[in-house]
Protein backbone atom coordinates (compact mmCIF):
# COMPACT_ATOMS: atom_id res chain seq x y z
CA UNK A 1 0.00 0.00 0.00
CA UNK A 2 2.68 2.50 0.95
CA UNK A 3 6.20 2.78 -0.31
CA UNK A 4 8.99 1.89 2.11
CA UNK A 5 9.93 5.52 2.64
CA UNK A 6 6.40 6.70 3.44
CA UNK A 7 5.84 7.68 7.06
CA UNK A 8 3.32 5.61 9.07
CA UNK A 9 -0.22 6.31 7.92
CA UNK A 10 -1.34 8.25 10.97
CA UNK A 11 1.56 10.65 10.62
CA UNK A 12 0.67 11.62 7.08
CA UNK A 13 0.02 15.33 6.96
CA UNK A 14 -2.99 15.59 4.80
CA UNK A 15 -3.70 18.35 2.37
CA UNK A 16 -7.33 17.26 2.27
CA UNK A 17 -7.71 18.19 5.89
CA UNK A 18 -5.50 21.16 6.46
CA UNK A 19 -4.91 22.05 10.05
CA UNK A 20 -7.86 24.23 11.09
CA UNK A 21 -6.85 27.88 10.99
CA UNK A 22 -8.21 31.31 11.79
CA UNK A 23 -11.87 31.71 12.68
CA UNK A 24 -12.69 28.12 11.87
CA UNK A 25 -10.05 26.79 14.25
CA UNK A 26 -11.32 29.12 16.94
CA UNK A 27 -14.83 27.80 16.49
CA UNK A 28 -13.67 24.18 16.67
CA UNK A 29 -11.72 24.82 19.85
CA UNK A 30 -14.54 26.83 21.39
CA UNK A 31 -16.96 23.92 21.01
CA UNK A 32 -14.45 21.34 22.21
CA UNK A 33 -13.42 23.42 25.24
CA UNK A 34 -17.06 24.08 26.10
CA UNK A 35 -17.89 20.40 25.98
CA UNK A 36 -14.75 19.44 27.87
CA UNK A 37 -15.90 21.78 30.63
CA UNK A 38 -19.35 20.21 30.66
CA UNK A 39 -17.69 16.80 30.97
CA UNK A 40 -15.23 17.64 33.69
CA UNK A 41 -16.64 20.51 35.79
CA UNK A 42 -19.24 18.46 37.68
CA UNK A 43 -16.50 16.05 38.73
CA UNK A 44 -14.17 18.85 39.78
CA UNK A 45 -16.91 20.62 41.70
CA UNK A 46 -17.56 17.51 43.79
CA UNK A 47 -13.87 16.79 44.44
CA UNK A 48 -13.08 20.41 45.32
CA UNK A 49 -15.91 20.85 47.77
CA UNK A 50 -15.19 17.58 49.55
CA UNK A 51 -12.21 19.31 51.21
CA UNK A 52 -14.18 22.32 52.44
CA UNK A 53 -16.17 23.28 55.51
CA UNK A 54 -19.91 22.85 55.41
CA UNK A 55 -20.41 26.60 55.34
CA UNK A 56 -17.94 27.05 52.49
CA UNK A 57 -19.61 24.29 50.46
CA UNK A 58 -22.82 26.30 50.44
CA UNK A 59 -21.59 29.89 50.38
CA UNK A 60 -18.65 29.59 47.95
CA UNK A 61 -19.10 26.37 46.00
CA UNK A 62 -16.95 27.58 43.09
CA UNK A 63 -13.84 28.39 45.12
CA UNK A 64 -11.09 25.80 45.47
CA UNK A 65 -10.36 24.65 49.04
CA UNK A 66 -8.39 27.77 50.01
CA UNK A 67 -6.87 28.10 53.47
CA UNK A 68 -9.66 29.01 55.85
CA UNK A 69 -12.22 27.04 53.84
CA UNK A 70 -10.55 23.66 54.35
CA UNK A 71 -12.12 20.92 56.42
CA UNK A 72 -11.56 17.17 56.29
CA UNK A 73 -14.52 16.35 58.51
CA UNK A 74 -16.25 14.45 55.69
CA UNK A 75 -13.31 12.10 55.29
CA UNK A 76 -13.12 11.62 59.07
CA UNK A 77 -16.79 10.65 59.35
CA UNK A 78 -16.39 8.33 56.45
CA UNK A 79 -13.40 6.49 57.78
CA UNK A 80 -15.19 6.07 61.12
CA UNK A 81 -18.47 4.79 59.73
CA UNK A 82 -17.81 3.01 56.46
CA UNK A 83 -15.45 0.19 55.67
CA UNK A 84 -14.20 1.60 52.42
CA UNK A 85 -10.84 -0.10 52.75
CA UNK A 86 -12.59 -3.47 52.88
CA UNK A 87 -14.92 -2.58 50.01
CA UNK A 88 -11.94 -1.53 48.00
CA UNK A 89 -10.14 -4.84 48.62
CA UNK A 90 -13.31 -6.72 47.65
CA UNK A 91 -13.61 -4.81 44.40
CA UNK A 92 -9.94 -5.33 43.64
CA UNK A 93 -10.18 -9.10 44.30
CA UNK A 94 -13.31 -9.47 42.17
CA UNK A 95 -12.15 -7.32 39.27
CA UNK A 96 -8.59 -8.70 39.37
CA UNK A 97 -9.59 -12.37 39.47
CA UNK A 98 -12.34 -12.00 36.89
CA UNK A 99 -9.97 -10.18 34.60
CA UNK A 100 -7.24 -12.80 34.99
CA UNK A 101 -9.76 -15.54 34.13
CA UNK A 102 -11.14 -13.59 31.18
CA UNK A 103 -7.72 -12.83 29.73
CA UNK A 104 -6.23 -16.29 30.17
CA UNK A 105 -9.27 -18.36 29.15
CA UNK A 106 -10.27 -15.84 26.48
CA UNK A 107 -6.79 -15.92 24.97
CA UNK A 108 -6.75 -19.74 25.01
CA UNK A 109 -10.10 -20.02 23.25
CA UNK A 110 -9.25 -17.18 20.88
CA UNK A 111 -5.97 -18.89 20.02
CA UNK A 112 -7.64 -22.21 19.28
CA UNK A 113 -10.31 -20.58 17.09
CA UNK A 114 -7.74 -18.56 15.19
CA UNK A 115 -5.12 -21.26 14.86
CA UNK A 116 -6.81 -24.57 14.11
CA UNK A 117 -9.27 -25.73 11.52
CA UNK A 118 -11.48 -28.32 13.11
CA UNK A 119 -15.06 -29.56 12.87
CA UNK A 120 -17.45 -26.92 14.14
CA UNK A 121 -14.86 -24.15 14.40
CA UNK A 122 -17.24 -21.54 12.99
CA UNK A 123 -20.11 -22.74 15.17
CA UNK A 124 -18.04 -22.59 18.35
CA UNK A 125 -16.95 -19.07 17.41
CA UNK A 126 -20.53 -17.99 16.77
CA UNK A 127 -21.74 -19.61 20.00
CA UNK A 128 -19.11 -17.81 22.05
CA UNK A 129 -19.89 -14.50 20.29
CA UNK A 130 -23.63 -14.63 21.12
CA UNK A 131 -22.94 -13.18 24.55
CA UNK A 132 -21.50 -9.95 23.16
CA UNK A 133 -24.93 -8.59 22.39
CA UNK A 134 -27.12 -10.31 25.00
CA UNK A 135 -26.88 -8.81 28.50
CA UNK A 136 -26.14 -11.42 31.17
CA UNK A 137 -28.48 -9.60 33.57
CA UNK A 138 -31.45 -11.17 31.83
CA UNK A 139 -30.46 -14.51 33.35
CA UNK A 140 -30.36 -13.10 36.89
CA UNK A 141 -33.30 -15.09 38.28
CA UNK A 142 -31.60 -18.31 37.33
CA UNK A 143 -28.11 -17.14 38.27
CA UNK A 144 -29.30 -16.42 41.81
CA UNK A 145 -30.80 -19.93 42.00
CA UNK A 146 -27.58 -21.53 40.79
CA UNK A 147 -25.48 -19.53 43.22
CA UNK A 148 -27.73 -20.39 46.11
CA UNK A 149 -27.63 -24.10 45.15
CA UNK A 150 -23.84 -23.91 45.07
CA UNK A 151 -23.91 -22.02 48.40
CA UNK A 152 -22.02 -19.17 46.78
CA UNK A 153 -24.41 -16.33 47.66
CA UNK A 154 -22.56 -13.59 49.53
CA UNK A 155 -19.18 -14.78 48.32
CA UNK A 156 -16.82 -12.92 46.03
CA UNK A 157 -16.45 -16.15 44.04
CA UNK A 158 -20.03 -15.81 42.76
CA UNK A 159 -19.24 -12.37 41.36
CA UNK A 160 -15.97 -13.56 39.82
CA UNK A 161 -17.72 -16.39 37.96
CA UNK A 162 -20.54 -14.21 36.66
CA UNK A 163 -18.18 -11.45 35.53
CA UNK A 164 -15.91 -13.99 33.85
CA UNK A 165 -18.90 -15.32 31.91
CA UNK A 166 -19.92 -11.76 31.03
CA UNK A 167 -16.47 -10.70 29.82
CA UNK A 168 -15.40 -13.83 27.92
CA UNK A 169 -17.41 -13.38 24.68
CA UNK A 170 -15.88 -10.01 23.78
CA UNK A 171 -12.42 -11.14 24.92
CA UNK A 172 -12.51 -14.26 22.74
CA UNK A 173 -13.80 -12.24 19.81
CA UNK A 174 -11.14 -9.51 19.97
CA UNK A 175 -8.19 -11.75 20.88
CA UNK A 176 -9.07 -14.21 18.14
CA UNK A 177 -8.85 -11.44 15.55
CA UNK A 178 -5.46 -10.35 16.78
CA UNK A 179 -4.15 -13.92 17.03
CA UNK A 180 -4.99 -14.35 13.32
CA UNK A 181 -2.50 -11.63 12.47
CA UNK A 182 0.45 -13.40 14.08
CA UNK A 183 2.63 -14.66 11.20
CA UNK A 184 2.37 -18.38 10.39
CA UNK A 185 6.11 -18.79 9.82
CA UNK A 186 6.85 -18.17 13.45
CA UNK A 187 4.50 -20.88 14.68
CA UNK A 188 5.56 -23.34 11.98
CA UNK A 189 9.21 -22.81 12.88
CA UNK A 190 8.36 -23.53 16.50
CA UNK A 191 6.52 -26.71 15.47
CA UNK A 192 9.51 -27.88 13.46
CA UNK A 193 11.59 -27.33 16.60
CA UNK A 194 9.23 -29.78 18.30
CA UNK A 195 7.41 -27.33 20.56
CA UNK A 196 4.05 -28.51 21.88
CA UNK A 197 0.88 -26.61 20.98
CA UNK A 198 0.71 -25.33 24.56
CA UNK A 199 4.21 -23.88 24.34
CA UNK A 200 3.28 -22.22 21.05
CA UNK A 201 0.32 -20.56 22.78
CA UNK A 202 2.67 -19.02 25.34
CA UNK A 203 4.93 -17.97 22.49
CA UNK A 204 2.09 -16.18 20.69
CA UNK A 205 0.49 -14.56 23.74
CA UNK A 206 3.12 -11.84 24.31
CA UNK A 207 2.84 -10.89 20.64
CA UNK A 208 -0.77 -9.74 21.08
CA UNK A 209 -0.02 -7.72 24.22
CA UNK A 210 -1.72 -4.52 22.93
CA UNK A 211 -4.94 -6.46 22.33
CA UNK A 212 -4.69 -8.03 25.79
CA UNK A 213 -4.30 -4.55 27.32
CA UNK A 214 -7.35 -3.29 25.42
CA UNK A 215 -9.46 -6.23 26.50
CA UNK A 216 -8.25 -5.78 30.09
CA UNK A 217 -9.39 -2.17 30.23
CA UNK A 218 -12.71 -2.89 28.53
CA UNK A 219 -13.59 -5.70 30.88
CA UNK A 220 -12.31 -3.97 34.00
CA UNK A 221 -14.46 -0.82 33.79
CA UNK A 222 -17.91 -2.45 33.70
CA UNK A 223 -16.93 -4.96 36.39
CA UNK A 224 -15.62 -2.28 38.75
CA UNK A 225 -18.67 -0.08 38.16
CA UNK A 226 -21.39 -2.74 38.30
CA UNK A 227 -24.11 -2.30 40.89
CA UNK A 228 -26.56 -5.00 39.82
CA UNK A 229 -24.74 -8.23 40.68
CA UNK A 230 -23.18 -7.04 43.97
CA UNK A 231 -26.66 -5.91 45.01
CA UNK A 232 -28.22 -9.27 44.15
CA UNK A 233 -25.49 -11.87 44.67
CA UNK A 234 -23.26 -10.40 47.40
CA UNK A 235 -24.98 -7.64 49.39
CA UNK A 236 -23.51 -8.79 52.74
CA UNK A 237 -21.26 -6.42 54.64
CA UNK A 238 -18.21 -8.68 54.22
CA UNK A 239 -18.51 -8.93 50.44
CA UNK A 240 -19.63 -5.42 49.45
CA UNK A 241 -17.80 -3.85 46.53
CA UNK A 242 -16.88 -0.16 46.38
CA UNK A 243 -19.74 0.61 44.01
CA UNK A 244 -22.39 -1.01 46.22
CA UNK A 245 -20.78 0.35 49.39
CA UNK A 246 -20.75 3.88 48.02
CA UNK A 247 -24.34 3.58 46.84
CA UNK A 248 -25.58 2.48 50.26
CA UNK A 249 -23.31 4.70 52.34
CA UNK A 250 -24.08 7.87 50.42
CA UNK A 251 -27.76 6.98 50.43
CA UNK A 252 -27.69 7.00 54.25
CA UNK A 253 -25.82 10.28 54.54
CA UNK A 254 -28.02 12.23 52.21
CA UNK A 255 -28.05 15.23 54.55
CA UNK A 256 -24.40 15.10 55.61
CA UNK A 257 -22.87 16.97 52.70
CA UNK A 258 -19.27 16.68 53.87
CA UNK A 259 -19.44 12.89 54.09
CA UNK A 260 -21.34 12.59 50.86
CA UNK A 261 -18.84 14.65 48.89
CA UNK A 262 -15.92 12.88 50.57
CA UNK A 263 -17.16 9.39 49.79
CA UNK A 264 -18.03 10.33 46.22
CA UNK A 265 -14.55 11.72 45.74
CA UNK A 266 -12.96 8.65 47.25
CA UNK A 267 -15.03 6.38 45.03
CA UNK A 268 -14.06 8.37 41.92
CA UNK A 269 -10.36 8.82 42.54
CA UNK A 270 -9.14 5.25 41.96
CA UNK A 271 -11.15 4.98 38.74
CA UNK A 272 -10.05 8.35 37.40
CA UNK A 273 -6.43 7.75 38.45
CA UNK A 274 -6.41 4.38 36.68
CA UNK A 275 -8.07 6.04 33.70
CA UNK A 276 -5.38 8.74 33.53
CA UNK A 277 -2.69 6.05 33.59
CA UNK A 278 -4.37 3.81 31.01
CA UNK A 279 -6.22 6.40 28.95
CA UNK A 280 -3.64 6.28 26.19
CA UNK A 281 -3.87 2.54 25.72
CA UNK A 282 -7.64 2.59 26.21
CA UNK A 283 -8.15 5.27 23.59
CA UNK A 284 -5.60 3.69 21.30
CA UNK A 285 -7.49 0.43 21.65
CA UNK A 286 -10.73 2.18 20.77
CA UNK A 287 -9.29 4.09 17.85
CA UNK A 288 -7.20 1.37 16.25
CA UNK A 289 -10.19 -0.77 15.59
CA UNK A 290 -10.05 -3.36 18.32
CA UNK A 291 -13.84 -3.19 18.26
CA UNK A 292 -14.42 -3.33 14.55
Amino acid sequence: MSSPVAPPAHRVISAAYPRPYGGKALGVHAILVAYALIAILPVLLIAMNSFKTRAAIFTTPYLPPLPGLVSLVGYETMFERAHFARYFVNSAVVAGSAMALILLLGAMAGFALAEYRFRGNAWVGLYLALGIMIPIRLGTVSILRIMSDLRLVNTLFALILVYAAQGLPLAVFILQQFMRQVPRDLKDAARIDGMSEYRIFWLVLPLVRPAVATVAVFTMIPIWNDLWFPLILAPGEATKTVTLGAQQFIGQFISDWNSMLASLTLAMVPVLAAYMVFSRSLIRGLTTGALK
Partner: protein
Amino acid sequence: MRPRLRRVPLHIIVFILPAAAIYTAFMIYPLFDSLRLSLHGNPEGGGVVFVGLQNYARLVADSLYAPRFWGAVRHNLIFFAIHMLVQNPVGLLLAALLSARRLPGLAVYRTLLFAPTVLSFVIVGFIWQLILSPLWGIAGGLLRAAGLGAHFRPWLGLEGSALVTLSLISVWQFVGIPLMLFHAALIGIPDDLLEAARVDGATGWRAFWGIEFPLILPVVGLVAILTYVGNFNAFDLIYTAQGALAGPNFSTDILGTFFYRTFFGFQLQLGNPFMGATVAGVMFLLILAGVLPYLFVWQRRIEVHEL
Protein backbone atom coordinates in the same frame (compact mmCIF):
# COMPACT_ATOMS: atom_id res chain seq x y z
CA MET B 1 -21.24 -49.47 14.40
CA ARG B 2 -21.47 -46.00 12.92
CA PRO B 3 -18.26 -44.70 11.45
CA ARG B 4 -16.64 -42.53 14.08
CA LEU B 5 -16.39 -38.82 13.46
CA ARG B 6 -12.90 -37.54 13.09
CA ARG B 7 -11.92 -36.64 16.66
CA VAL B 8 -11.05 -33.13 17.60
CA PRO B 9 -7.47 -33.17 18.94
CA LEU B 10 -7.14 -32.97 22.70
CA HIS B 11 -5.23 -29.69 22.82
CA ILE B 12 -8.04 -27.86 21.03
CA ILE B 13 -10.47 -29.09 23.66
CA VAL B 14 -8.10 -28.03 26.44
CA PHE B 15 -7.88 -24.54 24.93
CA ILE B 16 -11.59 -24.01 24.40
CA LEU B 17 -13.30 -25.97 27.14
CA PRO B 18 -12.61 -23.76 30.20
CA ALA B 19 -13.94 -20.60 28.53
CA ALA B 20 -16.88 -22.45 27.00
CA ALA B 21 -17.73 -24.10 30.32
CA ILE B 22 -17.84 -20.89 32.40
CA TYR B 23 -19.70 -19.05 29.65
CA THR B 24 -22.23 -21.86 29.24
CA ALA B 25 -22.79 -22.44 32.96
CA PHE B 26 -23.17 -18.82 34.03
CA MET B 27 -24.51 -17.09 30.95
CA ILE B 28 -26.15 -19.31 28.34
CA TYR B 29 -27.72 -21.82 30.70
CA PRO B 30 -29.16 -19.12 33.02
CA LEU B 31 -30.63 -17.27 30.03
CA PHE B 32 -32.46 -20.38 28.85
CA ASP B 33 -33.33 -21.52 32.35
CA SER B 34 -34.78 -18.08 33.00
CA LEU B 35 -36.92 -18.35 29.88
CA ARG B 36 -38.07 -21.79 31.08
CA LEU B 37 -38.95 -20.38 34.51
CA SER B 38 -41.05 -17.69 32.85
CA LEU B 39 -43.33 -20.49 31.62
CA HIS B 40 -43.78 -21.87 35.13
CA GLY B 41 -45.42 -20.74 38.33
CA ASN B 42 -46.73 -21.91 41.69
CA PRO B 43 -50.34 -20.69 41.59
CA GLU B 44 -51.50 -21.83 45.05
CA GLY B 45 -48.09 -21.57 46.65
CA GLY B 46 -47.77 -25.32 46.15
CA GLY B 47 -45.51 -27.10 43.69
CA VAL B 48 -44.11 -25.52 40.60
CA VAL B 49 -46.22 -26.22 37.53
CA PHE B 50 -46.03 -25.43 33.85
CA VAL B 51 -48.38 -22.55 33.10
CA GLY B 52 -47.59 -21.87 29.45
CA LEU B 53 -47.82 -18.22 28.50
CA GLN B 54 -50.02 -17.29 31.48
CA ASN B 55 -47.28 -15.21 33.11
CA TYR B 56 -46.85 -13.21 29.94
CA ALA B 57 -50.60 -12.72 29.73
CA ARG B 58 -50.63 -11.45 33.32
CA LEU B 59 -47.77 -9.09 32.59
CA VAL B 60 -49.53 -7.39 29.70
CA ALA B 61 -53.12 -7.53 30.99
CA ASP B 62 -53.40 -8.14 34.76
CA SER B 63 -54.18 -4.96 36.67
CA LEU B 64 -51.41 -5.72 39.19
CA TYR B 65 -48.65 -5.76 36.55
CA ALA B 66 -49.88 -4.28 33.29
CA PRO B 67 -49.96 -0.55 34.13
CA ARG B 68 -46.41 -0.63 35.51
CA PHE B 69 -45.21 -2.86 32.68
CA TRP B 70 -46.54 -0.66 29.90
CA GLY B 71 -45.31 2.39 31.77
CA ALA B 72 -41.82 0.90 31.94
CA VAL B 73 -41.86 0.05 28.22
CA ARG B 74 -42.98 3.58 27.35
CA HIS B 75 -40.36 5.19 29.59
CA ASN B 76 -37.69 2.92 28.16
CA LEU B 77 -38.60 4.00 24.62
CA ILE B 78 -38.38 7.66 25.66
CA PHE B 79 -35.05 6.94 27.38
CA PHE B 80 -33.76 5.35 24.16
CA ALA B 81 -35.15 8.11 21.92
CA ILE B 82 -33.34 10.79 23.94
CA HIS B 83 -30.07 8.87 23.63
CA MET B 84 -30.52 8.56 19.88
CA LEU B 85 -31.50 12.22 19.44
CA VAL B 86 -28.95 13.77 21.79
CA GLN B 87 -26.10 11.40 22.69
CA ASN B 88 -25.30 10.07 19.24
CA PRO B 89 -25.54 13.36 17.28
CA VAL B 90 -23.47 15.16 19.92
CA GLY B 91 -20.98 12.27 19.82
CA LEU B 92 -20.82 12.54 16.03
CA LEU B 93 -20.34 16.33 16.13
CA LEU B 94 -17.52 16.12 18.68
CA ALA B 95 -15.92 13.24 16.78
CA ALA B 96 -16.02 15.21 13.52
CA LEU B 97 -14.35 18.18 15.24
CA LEU B 98 -11.73 15.94 16.90
CA SER B 99 -10.93 14.21 13.64
CA ALA B 100 -9.65 17.33 11.90
CA ARG B 101 -6.10 16.33 10.97
CA ARG B 102 -3.36 17.66 13.22
CA LEU B 103 -5.70 19.17 15.77
CA PRO B 104 -3.63 20.75 18.53
CA GLY B 105 -4.52 19.38 21.97
CA LEU B 106 -6.14 16.24 20.54
CA ALA B 107 -4.88 13.94 23.33
CA VAL B 108 -6.08 16.28 26.07
CA TYR B 109 -9.52 16.66 24.51
CA ARG B 110 -9.89 12.92 24.06
CA THR B 111 -8.95 12.23 27.64
CA LEU B 112 -11.31 14.86 29.08
CA LEU B 113 -14.28 14.09 26.85
CA PHE B 114 -14.12 10.38 27.61
CA ALA B 115 -13.56 10.76 31.38
CA PRO B 116 -17.24 10.64 32.52
CA THR B 117 -17.69 7.36 30.65
CA VAL B 118 -15.34 5.48 32.99
CA LEU B 119 -17.23 6.54 36.12
CA SER B 120 -19.88 4.29 37.59
CA PHE B 121 -23.58 5.05 37.28
CA VAL B 122 -23.67 5.28 41.03
CA ILE B 123 -21.15 8.11 41.15
CA VAL B 124 -22.71 9.87 38.18
CA GLY B 125 -26.18 9.59 39.70
CA PHE B 126 -25.06 11.14 42.97
CA ILE B 127 -22.97 13.86 41.33
CA TRP B 128 -25.96 15.11 39.37
CA GLN B 129 -28.33 14.69 42.27
CA LEU B 130 -26.12 17.07 44.23
CA ILE B 131 -25.58 19.52 41.39
CA LEU B 132 -29.29 19.70 40.54
CA SER B 133 -30.29 19.89 44.20
CA PRO B 134 -32.10 23.11 45.13
CA LEU B 135 -30.33 22.85 48.51
CA TRP B 136 -26.84 23.28 47.10
CA GLY B 137 -28.06 25.60 44.40
CA ILE B 138 -25.37 24.96 41.79
CA ALA B 139 -27.75 24.52 38.85
CA GLY B 140 -30.05 27.26 40.12
CA GLY B 141 -27.11 29.60 40.68
CA LEU B 142 -25.75 29.03 37.18
CA LEU B 143 -29.14 29.73 35.64
CA ARG B 144 -29.49 32.90 37.72
CA ALA B 145 -26.05 34.00 36.55
CA ALA B 146 -27.30 33.57 32.98
CA GLY B 147 -30.42 35.54 33.80
CA LEU B 148 -32.61 32.43 33.61
CA GLY B 149 -33.10 31.95 37.34
CA ALA B 150 -36.85 31.80 36.97
CA HIS B 151 -36.54 28.62 34.90
CA PHE B 152 -34.90 26.54 37.62
CA ARG B 153 -36.95 23.61 38.90
CA PRO B 154 -36.04 20.60 41.01
CA TRP B 155 -36.10 18.61 37.78
CA LEU B 156 -35.34 15.21 39.32
CA GLY B 157 -38.26 15.59 41.71
CA LEU B 158 -40.97 16.47 39.22
CA GLU B 159 -42.99 13.83 37.43
CA GLY B 160 -42.95 15.74 34.19
CA SER B 161 -39.18 16.22 33.95
CA ALA B 162 -37.48 13.46 35.95
CA LEU B 163 -37.22 10.93 33.11
CA VAL B 164 -35.85 13.44 30.61
CA THR B 165 -33.37 14.72 33.21
CA LEU B 166 -32.13 11.22 33.97
CA SER B 167 -31.82 10.44 30.27
CA LEU B 168 -29.69 13.54 29.80
CA ILE B 169 -27.51 12.57 32.77
CA SER B 170 -26.99 9.18 31.13
CA VAL B 171 -26.19 10.96 27.86
CA TRP B 172 -23.62 13.12 29.68
CA GLN B 173 -21.94 9.97 30.93
CA PHE B 174 -22.01 7.88 27.77
CA VAL B 175 -21.45 10.37 24.97
CA GLY B 176 -17.83 9.14 25.09
CA ILE B 177 -18.74 5.80 23.49
CA PRO B 178 -20.22 7.08 20.19
CA LEU B 179 -17.61 9.83 20.25
CA MET B 180 -14.72 7.34 20.28
CA LEU B 181 -16.29 4.90 17.84
CA PHE B 182 -17.08 7.67 15.32
CA HIS B 183 -13.66 9.21 15.89
CA ALA B 184 -11.93 5.88 15.23
CA ALA B 185 -13.91 5.42 12.02
CA LEU B 186 -13.26 8.97 10.81
CA ILE B 187 -9.51 8.87 11.33
CA GLY B 188 -9.51 5.50 9.58
CA ILE B 189 -10.71 7.01 6.31
CA PRO B 190 -7.77 7.04 3.88
CA ASP B 191 -6.40 10.50 3.22
CA ASP B 192 -6.30 10.04 -0.55
CA LEU B 193 -10.09 9.63 -0.62
CA LEU B 194 -10.58 12.97 1.07
CA GLU B 195 -7.87 14.44 -1.11
CA ALA B 196 -9.75 13.31 -4.21
CA ALA B 197 -12.94 14.83 -2.83
CA ARG B 198 -11.18 18.10 -2.18
CA VAL B 199 -9.86 18.19 -5.71
CA ASP B 200 -13.43 17.65 -6.88
CA GLY B 201 -14.41 20.71 -4.88
CA ALA B 202 -16.13 19.04 -1.92
CA THR B 203 -14.97 20.59 1.33
CA GLY B 204 -16.13 21.02 4.89
CA TRP B 205 -19.83 20.35 5.42
CA ARG B 206 -20.43 18.86 1.96
CA ALA B 207 -17.41 16.57 2.14
CA PHE B 208 -18.53 15.38 5.55
CA TRP B 209 -22.09 14.43 4.58
CA GLY B 210 -21.23 13.37 1.03
CA ILE B 211 -18.13 11.29 1.66
CA GLU B 212 -17.19 10.71 5.27
CA PHE B 213 -20.65 10.03 6.70
CA PRO B 214 -21.53 7.32 4.15
CA LEU B 215 -18.16 5.71 4.83
CA ILE B 216 -18.80 5.48 8.57
CA LEU B 217 -22.36 4.15 8.18
CA PRO B 218 -21.38 0.73 9.58
CA VAL B 219 -20.36 2.50 12.79
CA VAL B 220 -23.64 4.42 12.87
CA GLY B 221 -25.40 1.07 12.95
CA LEU B 222 -23.07 -0.28 15.63
CA VAL B 223 -23.61 2.80 17.80
CA ALA B 224 -27.38 2.55 17.39
CA ILE B 225 -27.47 -1.11 18.41
CA LEU B 226 -25.10 -0.60 21.36
CA THR B 227 -27.30 2.27 22.54
CA TYR B 228 -30.41 0.15 22.14
CA VAL B 229 -29.05 -2.85 24.07
CA GLY B 230 -27.54 -0.63 26.77
CA ASN B 231 -30.74 1.36 27.24
CA PHE B 232 -33.06 -1.63 27.46
CA ASN B 233 -30.73 -3.14 30.03
CA ALA B 234 -30.28 0.03 32.11
CA PHE B 235 -30.92 -0.02 35.85
CA ASP B 236 -28.10 1.40 37.99
CA LEU B 237 -28.62 5.11 37.32
CA ILE B 238 -32.35 5.10 38.00
CA TYR B 239 -31.91 2.92 41.09
CA THR B 240 -29.22 5.22 42.47
CA ALA B 241 -30.93 8.51 41.74
CA GLN B 242 -34.58 7.59 42.29
CA GLY B 243 -34.56 4.31 44.24
CA ALA B 244 -36.20 0.98 43.35
CA LEU B 245 -39.59 2.68 43.10
CA ALA B 246 -38.27 4.89 40.26
CA GLY B 247 -40.08 7.96 41.56
CA PRO B 248 -41.63 10.38 41.60
CA ASN B 249 -44.74 8.24 41.22
CA PHE B 250 -42.99 5.68 38.93
CA SER B 251 -42.36 8.37 36.33
CA THR B 252 -38.79 7.12 35.76
CA ASP B 253 -39.59 3.41 35.93
CA ILE B 254 -37.86 1.52 33.11
CA LEU B 255 -37.70 -2.21 32.42
CA GLY B 256 -34.55 -2.68 34.55
CA THR B 257 -36.13 -1.24 37.70
CA PHE B 258 -39.44 -2.98 36.97
CA PHE B 259 -37.55 -6.28 36.61
CA TYR B 260 -35.78 -5.70 39.93
CA ARG B 261 -39.01 -4.92 41.82
CA THR B 262 -40.93 -7.78 40.24
CA PHE B 263 -38.19 -10.25 41.11
CA PHE B 264 -37.35 -9.01 44.62
CA GLY B 265 -40.57 -7.35 45.65
CA PHE B 266 -40.99 -3.92 47.17
CA GLN B 267 -42.99 -2.57 50.06
CA LEU B 268 -46.27 -4.53 50.11
CA GLN B 269 -45.81 -6.61 46.99
CA LEU B 270 -43.86 -9.84 47.42
CA GLY B 271 -41.12 -10.70 44.98
CA ASN B 272 -41.91 -13.40 42.44
CA PRO B 273 -39.10 -15.21 40.61
CA PHE B 274 -41.45 -16.51 37.93
CA MET B 275 -42.83 -13.09 37.08
CA GLY B 276 -39.29 -11.73 37.36
CA ALA B 277 -38.17 -14.27 34.78
CA THR B 278 -41.15 -13.24 32.65
CA VAL B 279 -40.06 -9.59 32.68
CA ALA B 280 -36.54 -10.74 31.74
CA GLY B 281 -38.11 -12.81 28.96
CA VAL B 282 -39.82 -9.75 27.52
CA MET B 283 -36.58 -7.77 27.76
CA PHE B 284 -34.82 -10.62 25.97
CA LEU B 285 -37.37 -10.52 23.14
CA LEU B 286 -37.12 -6.73 22.87
CA ILE B 287 -33.33 -6.90 22.68
CA LEU B 288 -33.49 -9.70 20.08
CA ALA B 289 -35.96 -7.59 18.11
CA GLY B 290 -33.23 -4.99 17.85
CA VAL B 291 -30.15 -7.19 17.49
CA LEU B 292 -31.43 -9.65 14.85
CA PRO B 293 -32.43 -7.03 12.26
CA TYR B 294 -29.11 -5.33 12.91
CA LEU B 295 -27.11 -8.51 12.30
CA PHE B 296 -29.09 -9.85 9.37
CA VAL B 297 -30.39 -6.77 7.57
CA TRP B 298 -28.28 -3.73 8.39
CA GLN B 299 -24.88 -5.41 8.46
CA ARG B 300 -25.48 -7.37 5.25
CA ARG B 301 -26.69 -4.35 3.33
CA ILE B 302 -23.80 -2.28 4.56
CA GLU B 303 -21.30 -4.95 3.55
CA VAL B 304 -22.71 -4.98 0.05
CA HIS B 305 -22.37 -1.22 -0.11
CA GLU B 306 -18.79 -1.37 1.03
CA LEU B 307 -17.91 -3.57 -1.91
